[in-house]
């Protein structure tokens, strides 16, 4: 789910950036350093939407660098355990399939895909129900439930999705 949240971060600035454009420099350094990053606690920082305030700078002893505490508003994407969300299938193989929901990679193991869905290999590998009515292949849209997340240094990978919620887009209103 996307959230609009206020976060705080200390920005260290070299003295050569001081002057009239101090504020602009702080903001652009913040954007470079924060946008696109990910932490286990707050998820992916997608975009900074505004600066709440910039605190008083503190000069670091011995270096001349100044640290400014900056409060900023941003849009974050944070997947939660138990959340149901929609995703686009990016790869299908016999172990299961991968899907993407925004910046997040999701893996659905074949143990969690409904039993009546069979894996079909070929140039378009897919999972199909016995009557052929539902087919999960690359680029399909699925609705799934997150049952666990794992945080790597740079990205959250959601692992393991429970099966009953894996459904095709057309079925979304039957949830």
């Amino acid at each position, binding site marked *: 789910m996307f959230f609009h949240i*206020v976060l705080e971060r200390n920005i260290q600035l070299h003295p050569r950036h001081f002057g009239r454009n101090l504020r602009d420099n702080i903001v652009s350094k913040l954007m470079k350093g924060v946008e696109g990053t990910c932490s*286990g606690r707050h998820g992916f920082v997608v975009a900074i939407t505004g600066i709440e305030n910039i605190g008083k700078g503190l000069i670091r002893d011995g270096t001349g660098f100044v640290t400014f505490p900056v409060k900023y508003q941003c*849009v974050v*994407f944070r997947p939660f355990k138990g959340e149901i969300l929609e995703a686009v299938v990016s790869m299908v193989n016999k172990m299961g399939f991968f899907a993407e929901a*925004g910046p997040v990679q999701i893996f659905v193991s074949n143990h969690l895909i409904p039993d009546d869905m069979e894996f079909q290999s070929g140039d378009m590998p897919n999972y199909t129900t016995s009557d052929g009515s539902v087919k999960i292949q690359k680029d399909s849209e699925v609705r799934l439930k997150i049952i666990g997340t794992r945080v790597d240094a740079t990205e959250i990978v959601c692992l393991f999705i429970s099966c009953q919620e894996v459904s095709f887009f057309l079925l979304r209103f039957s949830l």
Partner: protein
Amino acid sequence: MSGEEEENAAELKIGDEFLKAKCLMNCEVALILEHKYEQLQQTSDDPMNQVSQVFEKSLQYVKRFSRYKNPDALCVLGNLCPETVEEAIAMVPSIRSKGRAHDDEAIEKMLNDLSLIKKFE
């Protein structure tokens, strides 16, 4: 770590800071990101180079999964709670406008759904 363990979105256990934060609908995120993207387009020639992969992927995702093209209209409908199709069209003429597949039946269904939400609250 205990907070992390108990996290469960199905029961709205999502940690204090996220409960305080405002959660956004996909269509709202799309508006924000597109606005930001336009700003970038004005300041540089190649905006795709400027934005992070996370931004790009999120934008694609929210565009694909936006249910509503116009959150303002949704807001009006939510606030005013019209009961009949005529009322709804009078308040938000754009739900009938070109390019949307909303016929009377679809609008009626939508209004019914909205009143259902009211009942369950």
